[in-house]
């Protein structure tokens, strides 16, 4: 079990990152910090999926003269490109909301906001 986990060390790291991000989302009080936790989670999932695409001693999957295999799996890279864009979009919206909350309430601490309600 531990041996198998060790050989899949990269995956395990993304799980740990995922949980660290989740911790920030739950435990942090500042809305921006909460959101940074979310970004950590996003990164961890992206890292996990990209890691699936890794092949031992693989090179970038760009064909053409002089290119030699093995090439790494192109699919996870393509997926994660989309994933990153989604993450950026979510971040943009979250920041706009935080900006508005700041303008209207003068604070972005979750507990102070709760008192305002």
């Amino acid at each position, binding site marked *: 079990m531990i041996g*198998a*986990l060790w050989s899949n060390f990269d995956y395990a790291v993304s799980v740990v990152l995922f*949980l660290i991000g989740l911790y920030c989302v739950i435990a942090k009080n500042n809305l921006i910090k909460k959101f940074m936790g979310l970004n950590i989670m996003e990164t961890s999932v992206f890292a996990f999926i990209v*890691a699936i*695409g890794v092949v031992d001693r693989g090179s970038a*999957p760009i064909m053409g003269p002089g290119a030699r295999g093995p090439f790494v799996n*192109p699919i996870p890279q393509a997926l994660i490109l*989309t994933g990153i864009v989604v993450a950026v979009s979510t971040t943009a919206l979250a920041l706009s909301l935080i900006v508005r909350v700041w303008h209207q309430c003068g604070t972005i601490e979750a507990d102070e906001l709760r008192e305002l309600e």
Partner: protein
Amino acid sequence: MKKALIIALLAVAAIPLLAAMASMPRFGSPEQPAYTHVASRYLQKGAEEAGADNVVTGVILNYRGFDTNGEVTVIFTACAATAAVLVTSGSRKKEKPGEATVPLSPVVGYVVRLLAPFIALFAFYVVLFGEVSPGGGFQGGTIFAALIIILSVVAGRNVAERVLPARVRPWLQIAGPLSFIAVGTLGAVLTGSYLGFPHARGLLATAMLMGIELGIGIGGATVFASIFWRLGDEP
């Protein structure tokens, strides 16, 4: 106390996750299903079939082009979403650059003005050569957006906005989805399915790919710049 509880809960949640990770196919193995099933075909035939030496680009634009169609929609959704949250009829933009920040040194302004054309050129390079090298519409578009953002910080928003005039900006923002719909429909006419590309690696297929890349690049750049500007508007 509360934090300890959260950590304990997350630690419990980690167990099944780590167990699952341990029994995933071995990391980096060429025998793993992810590599042997669909990906192997992409790697073997991708360069010819998809019309791009960079197989990642081939996957993004051709094999899984519809995902990217969705993706550009997501970017535009973010643009519309920030607009719906931030725009008000009374909102005005900050007229003076760097109002609340320290005044910029003239060196910064000079360097930026010197570098701006090169950054723009690089952005276009990344867009157009995504087909054969690392890069593509998003990457190039992001670089271009960065240029615009730098310009609006350094030279003021009025200068930067001249690059993307407000009159056509709503159309530029949707360049991504529109180019996809146009090319996809053209593909449907030519090959019988939406986002289909003519198989032979000819001028037409390349032009279609380029069209999409350019659309993504322009659209992405405009959207990112618009979001940046909107975040700075006075409510």
